[in-house]
């Protein structure tokens, strides 16, 4: 990883501590049949801290989604994993499936790109919000319903009581993504993995969801791992940005550093690929 610049931010040292943080060190993942084994993550170091949005940028196939999946323990069957993913004091890679289930969806939650496929089409919104909450907390149906109403209100879904009785097809994409966020937050996770959370949404709807995510970080102290290829979304939401390519982090820094003064050639090429009037005004021209 000699090609990784600005390692100091998260690459070495103690990193964040405490219950709410995820600390990834030297994460390596290999996939595929023995004859064609591929290294998809090649020594990833990354921290997700409470109240902060950690951005993970890169193109398709760079490994950014795989990194989020590794934290969730959702890597494809047959994947071999090495390195460390610590959540507070717990080493996630060493947990039994049962102990991992107690963390996943409960302390660390995830939202994905397409809310129409992450929500179950045949379950009411109430069940989507309360089933996992009751399984994790043992709450009564009435308590779970109260919590669901509270969260639908928080994510600004109009008329929460009616919404609970409806089904996913009765909502627009933006409303569904809000509901998916509410569902993810039910168990009061400290970390949210957001994999392209606004890519399927219209820009005006995207703006609302970005504001919501920022508010959740600031108000609830939620730590967000934001995975996206959209530098506009990155610039709006991420506090720090790590740029991935070919399973490695090639550059990391604060949002402002990475976007306006990229050091790695690859980051510069990503910024140069933006439409001209859309590039940062004080960004270096790579040519």
């Amino acid at each position, binding site marked *: 990883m000699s090609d990784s610049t600005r390692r100091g931010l998260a690459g070495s040292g103690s990193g964040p501590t405490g219950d709410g943080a995820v600390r990834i060190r030297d994460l390596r993942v290999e996939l595929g049949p023995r004859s064609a084994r591929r290294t998809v993550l090649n020594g990833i170091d990354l921290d997700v801290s409470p109240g902060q949005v950690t951005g993970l940028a890169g*193109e*398709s196939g760079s490994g950014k989604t795989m990194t989020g999946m590794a934290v969730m323990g959702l890597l494809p069957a047959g994947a071999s994993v090495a390195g460390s993913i610590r959540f507070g004091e717990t080493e996630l890679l060493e947990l039994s499936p049962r102990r991992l289930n107690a963390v996943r969806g409960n302390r660390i939650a995830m939202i994905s790109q397409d809310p129409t496929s992450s929500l179950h089409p045949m379950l009411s919104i109430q069940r989507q919000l309360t089933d996992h909450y009751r399984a994790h907390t043992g709450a009564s149906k009435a308590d779970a319903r109260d919590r669901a109403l509270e969260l639908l209100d928080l994510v600004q879904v109009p008329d929460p009581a009616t919404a609970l009785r409806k089904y996913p097809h009765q909502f627009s*994409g933006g409303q569904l993504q809000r509901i998916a966020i509410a569902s993810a937050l039910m168990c009061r996770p400290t970390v949210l993995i957001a994999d392209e959370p606004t890519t399927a949404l*219209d*820009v*005006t*709807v*995207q*703006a*609302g969801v*970005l*504001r919501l995510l*920022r508010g959740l970080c600031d108000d609830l102290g939620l730590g967000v791992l934001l995975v996206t*290829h*959209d*530098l*506009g*979304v*990155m*610039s*709006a*939401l*991420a*506090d720090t940005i790590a740029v991935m390519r070919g399973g490695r982090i090639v550059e990391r820094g604060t*949002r*402002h*550093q*990475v*976007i*306006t003064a990229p050091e790695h050639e690859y980051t510069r*090429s*990503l*910024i140069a*690929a*933006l*439409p*001209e*009037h*859309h*590039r*940062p*005004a004080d960004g270096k021209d790579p040519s």
Partner: protein
Amino acid sequence: MTELLRIEGARISYRQPGRGRIEAVRGVDLTLEGGAVLGLVGESGCGKSTIARAVCGLVPLDDGRVLHNGRPVRPLGLRRRDAEDLRIQMVFQNPYASLNPRRTVGSQITDGLRINPDRSAWTVAGLLGEVELERSAATRYPHEFSGGQRQRIAIARAIASGPDLLIGDEPIASLDASLQARVAELMRDLAVRTGAGLLFISHDLSIVRVIADDVAVMRAGEIVETGSAAGVWDAPQHPYTQRLLAAVPKVDGLGTLPG
């Protein structure tokens, strides 16, 4: 003079099971000249794709007309398309669905060449070069290519037939952000260089700003604003256009929340 494309008072509706008819396009007028690029922007469900489909004759109009070189486009039916209508070509959003997975890239581009009125205009190798792919791509199959490469192949196939009107219906929406501007520019350059008009449909105003001469902003089946791409970007008049532009996240590294 007759325009390359003239849409007059187009109204299009769909029947929805159990919910009656919904009017997707409610009286739209648009014109496009050869060699020019018109960007049609708007959010999901505004009717922009329906217009693209109507221009190709894929959906019938309830009212109004779509004129291609002054001649109404005939809705696609079971009979063979008129030679004139074959000069309208479309590049779809999803290159994974629009290319035939069981035929080589070369043979699919040859389909286009076969209906080109100017038989000697292109060769398969020449077209692959134009879209920045290796000559050897001709003997390979679509699954061997990435999304961006497949969209280049779809563009090559559309250009192969020598269209005078090229339509891109969100042709870059499924590509990585870093490829979008490049593929959009490639499509624009090829269309303009061959003298064709390009109707480029997108929800992404920042890309349309770069490649379109004029832009039309659509909302709920109606055009709310038209003008030069630079003019609309710099000084949007309609409140909806202003809202749409304000919602585009700025790549300034300052954490500015859009909207």
